């Protein structure tokens, strides 16, 4: 309003062009005013995120190129670190540790460096297995919850319970369930050292994670399902499409945007998995994820840990990029779909 009133009269002859000019200018000004207003409103958020995220990342990257200060194994004197180049990164990626006499040697087994590729492997293994299981089970749960039946409210309430329990408590709960004399061994009449041996430990973590996070997946997929108009199914039924065909050619493609967003969120979340393995196994028996490795390394040396956390960040970033770029997880479109679903419901 104010911008239009403030328009100074121009001495142009053609009244039409003047009007156009005025309109364009006032639109410009209104846009500029909007931009200014929006940036004032958004600035505090961006500044705060800059302080709590960008600053630590940059200082982490700077740290990752420094040597850890400490006692020089060669001279026995305290050294102040200094520039390390890519030394911290090669320690993790190429498994090259500084040798006592200068130069590098292959990191001996037992060092944290030597666990890097195993940790990367197990992190991806956990992410792949848990997200696959959660997608399948979550889809099934969503299909059930989308049906109309008495007690549907109860089911929808029940799935929120695992989601609401803190992961640390979930871990303790499953630790008890998987205890040697616990209910899991009793029920299946087995005597497995669940959290104390290689594969059972992995499965214990996977089961606990699936229990905890499938509901989230199911709710996101359900939101996507509810956006599909019912008459599409009616039309397909009339045309003689089987249940499987209706699922394959209607449900799946229409729910795909929401599904991809849900999968993306879960994959990124699973790649930083820490709470469950840290509490269930402490990272023993080949369950050390990248996050656990970072935390273990912090006690040994900040700079090397900074290199590892930067690597973890890069790995997760690459996975996110691949998802968005090649698998078509369009986050804004997907959440738009979810939003519409809510309106329709």
């Amino acid at each position, binding site marked *: 309003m104010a911008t239009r009133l403030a328009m100074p009269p121009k001495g142009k002859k053609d009244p039409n062009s003047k009007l156009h000019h005025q309109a364009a200018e006032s639109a410009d000004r209104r846009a500029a005013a909007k931009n200014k207003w929006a940036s004032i*409103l958004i600035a505090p958020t961006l500044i*705060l995120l800059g302080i709590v995220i960008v600053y630590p990342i940059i200082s982490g990257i700077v740290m990752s190129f420094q040597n850890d200060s400490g006692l020089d194994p060669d001279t026995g004197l305290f050294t102040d670190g200094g520039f390390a180049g890519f030394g911290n990164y090669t320690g993790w990626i190429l498994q090259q540790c500084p040798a006592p006499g200068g130069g590098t040697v292959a990191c001996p087994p037992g060092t944290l460096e030597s666990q890097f590729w195993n940790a990367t492997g197990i992190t991806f293994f956990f992410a792949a297995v848990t997200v696959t299981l959660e997608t399948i089970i979550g889809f099934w749960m969503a299909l059930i919850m989308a049906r109309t039946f008495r007690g549907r409210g109860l089911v929808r309430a029940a799935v929120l319970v695992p989601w609401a329990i803190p992961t640390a408590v979930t871990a303790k709960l499953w630790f008890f369930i998987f205890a040697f004399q616990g209910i899991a061994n009793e029920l299946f009449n087995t005597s497995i050292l669940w959290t104390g041996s290689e594969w059972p430990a992995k499965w214990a973590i996977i089961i606990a994670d699936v229990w905890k996070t499938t509901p989230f997946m199911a709710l996101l997929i359900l939101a996507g399902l509810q956006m599909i108009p019912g008459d599409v199914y009616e039309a397909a039924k009339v045309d003689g499409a089987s249940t499987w065909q209706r699922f394959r050619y209607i449900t799946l493609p229409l729910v795909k945007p929401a599904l991809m967003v849900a999968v993306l969120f879960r994959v990124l979340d699973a790649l930083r998995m820490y709470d469950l393995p840290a509490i269930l196994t402490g990272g023993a028996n080949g369950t050390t994820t*990248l996050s656990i490795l970072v935390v273990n390394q912090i006690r040994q040396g900040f700079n090397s840990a900074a290199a590892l956390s930067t690597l973890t960040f890069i790995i997760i970033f690459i996975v996110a990029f691949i998802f968005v770029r090649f698998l078509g997880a369009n986050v804004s479109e997907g959440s738009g779909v979810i939003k519409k679903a809510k309106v329709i419901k």
Partner: protein
Amino acid sequence: MTQAVATSSGRPTESTPGRRAAASRERWASIRTYISAAIIVTWCLLPFYWMIITAFRDVAFTYDTAFYPTHVTLDNFRTAFATDAGNNFTLALFNSFFIGATTTLIALVVGVFAAYALARIDFKFKFVILGVILGASMFPGVALITPLFQLFTDIGWIGSYQALIIPNISFVLPLTVYTLTAFFREMPWELEEAARIDGCTPGQAFRKVIMPLAAPAVFTTAILAFISAWNEFLIASQLSSDATAPVTVAIASFAGSQPQQEPYTAVMAAGTIVTIPLVLLVLILQKRIVAGLTAGAVK
């Protein structure tokens, strides 16, 4: 069945056997739905139920496998709150509450303006900023922990409340902005204009029309933000001290009345105390929580 055929005589009907088959198929489908629903409810609630009945079970019968409450006692809750074993659960509850509430408050006060701009104003780089905020919400906390650990060590903040609140903002603030933006987009903002036309001042329009409309959205977002801060474990486990440890950290390192023995029943009691308020809150606000979860599409 025959009755149904008779009443719908107005239009051509299928033969009775066909109808009967369809009806029985439908009955089967409905039975299958109920069985599936029962499986889902059992799978989701059984471990939770197990935690609660264990919490009320005498420690001597920790491994009792009866599916109903046996050897009921309140001792575990007493152990959970007893400080002689080195636990300070009351303090941990306070810490969690304080850290969660402060984080939520900061995130809301700052985030509500950004969400308003993102939902209501068309401006340059709007989608870039939305993308940045969404990306920030997926940011791995482990990438923050090393630099923050060193920084907080240098300035002597390790174990302080601010050392736990600041990192929490990194994931609570993006979640707050994103969820609020989704809520604000759906609000009937034209009512504000209507109120202005009807003679309200901008302040009145905001207080009498926008506030009551936005309050549930802000409240739901606050709950989601609080839950995510309450559940945080990784950062708190590294940056807290005994005096500031939140419940997640306290439970993870719980000590029982007998050393060398995992105090399962007391841990389950502590877990029950931590979980019950959340579960109740979530169940009461079920519809809104689900809407907030899926609208923001963030954990």
